[in-house]
């Protein structure tokens, strides 16, 4: 058993990396370039004091600086992915005094020497700007002159002039860098999950509150759903063909075929507008700062209708599955034997048939509990309920990059973990699985 778990965990980690890599590389296809927009924004603030030529220079420097900050100074997807994870390193500081762009103008020698003085003297490293790979180490001034005058440098600048692209590609060929410039890994494994533009906070500060809300609704819903559907499904299977069963069949068919948002809208129209029992949206009454018991009551009042709606939306499909698996269990030969032995009907149903029916149900039950954490998107959008689903929806709509990636990681992890738990539960529920492992 332990070996099985270990194997599954290993497999889970592998799949996790694969899936996140796929999603990450998909997201790199987005044409947004954060470094460019940030540099643009900053240059607009400084516009007042600089001439256009100086602006160009400053913009290039800022662009490079932001690229190093976000770690997007390379085009290689694998490296970007590793940096995001935190397994590969990127520059820690934003300071633009960490590097100096070697331009093809009359003052290049002077500016380079000034930079060298700033960083405390030679040696310095010449790096190619587009992927920050080391090109050459310069040990003293003569080597610097030789480099600037070299054919290599001139040829590179010439080539650049023909390729100049104002839409975000780095138009610098070489930079000077101090030898002991520090690069440190910082990413998910270091605890840096990113910064959400939308909320103005680091991602880890935004998510827990939403997760708590989704879990709150989800827990109530899951308990209510299971409490209703399991007895209902068992009764329908036992009394198969009766009027009660047929009635329930029709209801579950309609409920299963209706898109969830239609059920929600009918409930909203009925309960909020016609009856006026519940409020339509939000989590708390705006403006009123209740405390203590009244706060809890207010919260529950707001949460009631979404819970009821979510329960109704999930009733139909789970009842069907319960009924189907219970019918399959009741058709087993061992049930016929149990009845022939003279056991009471109650024992036959709950102790024999239900145990067999439980096996396929495990996936549903456990999956349902884990699914509550990820939140029901449509429900939360309609009710304005601040849960994980709404968080994800708004993040995708506003292209809040870090938030989307973080939520993706959570969803993938939950999915894989719930698969593992389901497999383990199969083992707990079905002794045959246990033994064969």
């Amino acid at each position, binding site marked *: 058993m332990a070996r099985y778990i270990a194997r599954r965990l290993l*497999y889970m980690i592998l*799949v996790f990396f*694969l*899936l996140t890599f796929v*999603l990450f590389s*998909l*997201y790199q*296809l*987005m*044409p947004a370039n954060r470094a460019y927009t940030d540099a643009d924004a900053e240059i607009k603030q400084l516009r007042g004091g600089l001439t256009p030529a100086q602006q160009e220079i400053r913009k290039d420097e800022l662009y490079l600086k932001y690229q190093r900050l976000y770690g997007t100074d390379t085009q290689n997807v694998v490296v970007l992915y590793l940096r995001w994870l935190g397994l590969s390193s990127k520059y820690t500081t934003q300071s633009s005094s960490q590097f100096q762009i070697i331009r093809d103008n009359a003052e290049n020698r002077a500016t380079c020497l000034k930079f060298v003085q700033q960083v405390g003297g030679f040696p310095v490293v010449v790096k190619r700007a587009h992927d920050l790979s080391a090109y050459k180490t310069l040990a003293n001034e003569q080597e610097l002159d030789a480099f600037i005058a070299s054919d290599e440098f001139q040829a590179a600048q010439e080539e650049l002039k023909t390729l100049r692209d104002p839409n975000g590609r780095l138009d610098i060929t070489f930079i000077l860098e101090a030898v002991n410039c520090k690069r440190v890994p910082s990413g998910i494994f270091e605890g840096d999950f990113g910064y959400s533009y939308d909320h103005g906070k680091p991602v880890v500060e935004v998510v827990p509150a939403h997760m708590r809300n989704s879990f709150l609704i989800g827990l109530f819903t899951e308990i209510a759903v299971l409490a209703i559907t399991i007895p209902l499904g068992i009764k329908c299977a036992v009394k*198969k*063909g009766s009027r009660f069963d047929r009635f329930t069949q029709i209801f579950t*068919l*309609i409920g*299963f*075929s*209706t*898109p*969830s*948002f*239609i059920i929600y*809208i009918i409930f*909203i*129209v009925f309960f*909020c*507008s016609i009856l006026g029992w519940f409020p*339509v*949206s939000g989590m708390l009454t705006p403006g009123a700062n209740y405390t203590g018991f009244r706060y809890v009551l207010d919260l529950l009042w707001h949460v009631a209708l979404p819970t009821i709606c979510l329960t109704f939306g999930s009733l139909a499909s789970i009842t069907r599955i319960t009924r189907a698996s219970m019918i399959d269990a009741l*058709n087993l030969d061992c049930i016929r034997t149990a009845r022939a032995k003279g056991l009471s009907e109650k024992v036959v149903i709950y102790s024999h048939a239900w145990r067999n029916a439980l096996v396929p149900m495990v996936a549903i039950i456990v999956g349902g509990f884990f699914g509550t954490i*990820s939140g029901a*998107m*449509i429900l939360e*959008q*309609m009710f304005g309920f601040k849960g994980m689903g709404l968080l*994800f*929806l708004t993040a*995708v*709509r506003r*292209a809040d990059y870090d938030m*989307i990636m973080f*939520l*993706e990681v959570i*969803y*993938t992890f*939950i*999915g*894989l973990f719930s*698969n593992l738990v389901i497999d383990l539960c199969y083992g707990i529920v079905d002794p045959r699985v246990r033994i064969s492992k």
Partner: protein
Amino acid sequence: MKHENIFRKLARWFVRSIFGLKFEEKWFHINSNTEKAREITYKNGVPDDSELIVSPTRQIFNRFMERKFAVFSVFVVVAMFLVVFIVPHFMYKYYDAYTETTLKDLPPTFDLMSVPNEMKDQIKSIDSYSGFTVGLSQEGKVYVWGAASFNATGVNLKDIPQEVRDAKIAFVSAGFDHIIAIGEDGKFYGWGNNRFGQYDIYDADKNLIQDDNIANVPDDVYYGRLDVSQIKRVTSGYQASAILMKDGTLYIWGNMKTYDNMINFIANSEGEPKKGFVDIDFTLSKVVTIDETQSTINTTGAVSKRKKNRAGSGLFGAARTSISGEGTDLSTFLGERKITEIRATQSSICLLLDDGSIALSGDFKDDNVEVPVLEDGEYFIDIEGGNYHYSGVTNLGHVYSFGGDHYYQASAPALEGAAKIYTGAFQNYAVDANGKLLKTWGLSHFLFGTDEAGANIAERVIAGGRVTMTVGAVAVIIEIIIGVSIGLLSGFLGGAVDIFLMRVAEVFSSIPLYPFLLILSSLLAQAPISEDAKLYMIMVILGVLGWPGFAYVTRAQVLVAREAEYVTAAQAMGVKTRRIAFSHILPNIISVILVNMTLSFAASMQTETSLSFLGFGVIYPRPSWGNMLSRASDAVAAINFPWQWIFTSVILILTTICINTIGDTLRDVMDPKSTNDK
């Protein structure tokens, strides 16, 4: 037994689906197969049971056909497919991005063009600007028909005030959300929305807006001081109205925000109205008049000399005789002729000249009906304008229509004896000399109402059904092709291939569906590919994320079927592996795949609907059942305009129920252990 052809079969199945087996047997004088099966015939003294043996497929089919609701569902699904794929070819005027603000948010109405019976023989005048029409009979009674109730503002124009009902009315005119009426004694009535000065003077007690942009009703009009016999024309625009007297005095009032040049026509600061006009009408954003001294179109209100060509100001500079023809400068065009009438649509004007010919100016949309060619000696005696079209009646009693034709309002029938013509916004009413209604043509009904853009919901439901069902069908087909192939391979070959393929399926099935779909469609939305290509990509993505289900099912079935003896026999005979898999095993598995196919089709449709509802799948203007329901997410709109989501929901739910029933019934009839209960 009667000769059994396809029509008889269809008729039998239809009767069986609605009424049941008993009636089918009674009416068609047959015994069903199960009945036959229970009869025991003897052959050579021994029970002859050769007819009890039917192939498994035949047996499944028979048992399926016994279930009323399943057969009914098949009919519904087939009918739905036919409707959504064939009817769009007959919706000639439909296109996805159609908008019409004067027709927005109308409930299902069928009386948009139905003149009340009391008025049909004595029509005095008819006027309309949006979804409702006001009519005046020769007895002086006012009638309102069409979609006259505005849920959002609570205004219902069919509630004609009692005083109007009691009085004898001489003139009526309908604007966008108000109606004004002038009694024969000159008294002024108005009802409807009065928040923008359509018919009421600002009073501190009433809840009205006082604004520089509102021109109030002139006192002469409001206090009933006008001489009704001197009124030449009463007309209304968006939230404004105008009365033109025979001596050229113009009273005009209303919401000036929509008409940027109305300020040139209102009374001056002493309250004296402007004079000297021959005719007036409203376009979408301009008031157009004819000045009697110069007979040039006066769109700015500035009086211009004849010599200086001010007619070239703005939109209505060049005049022409046909919709798509070349325009010439107006004074050159006119020569010595004078303009007698001016009528306007939303974006164009039509001038009736004193020799009976017409001149057009302004913008016309692409799909217009051209100006008709009149017979010799025929000339127009009257022109009226709707929102996008014109209709004219000639001296010979014929009527012609031209201009915008989206609701066939420009397709005039051949008539004789027409003396007057009245136009609504999208309708035409041809009336003879006695006031009797001859014929109507134009927009007569909305089956499911209109949505917030003004488009016909019935047409969008059908076009949207095509999109939704195509997406569902293609996604399922892709799922089947990938999933069944992988399942067959994995189940039949076993070993390392099996383990590897199942791992791949596990990876695909652990991708969280909705987050992945959302991200992919938001990426797609920014991709520089055509809209059609984006739709195909969505279908492919749905298919590619859903195939593991089919792979698992197929693999399980193959693992069972692999142990059968016919497979061993085939292998012993030397049949190739591929042939065994596809020709021997697959036909035995196909029943289970069929069941999953129907259920998966319903699930794909649901996924696409939810995705479009959230705004990520099919994007406006292309309709889909999901994004047509997105308006329902706003609780206020859902209550005020219930028709916008109820019809689509009902059709969607019905289709899904029927598809699910077919799948469920198939699964029930294929299970050899289940007893014969319905």
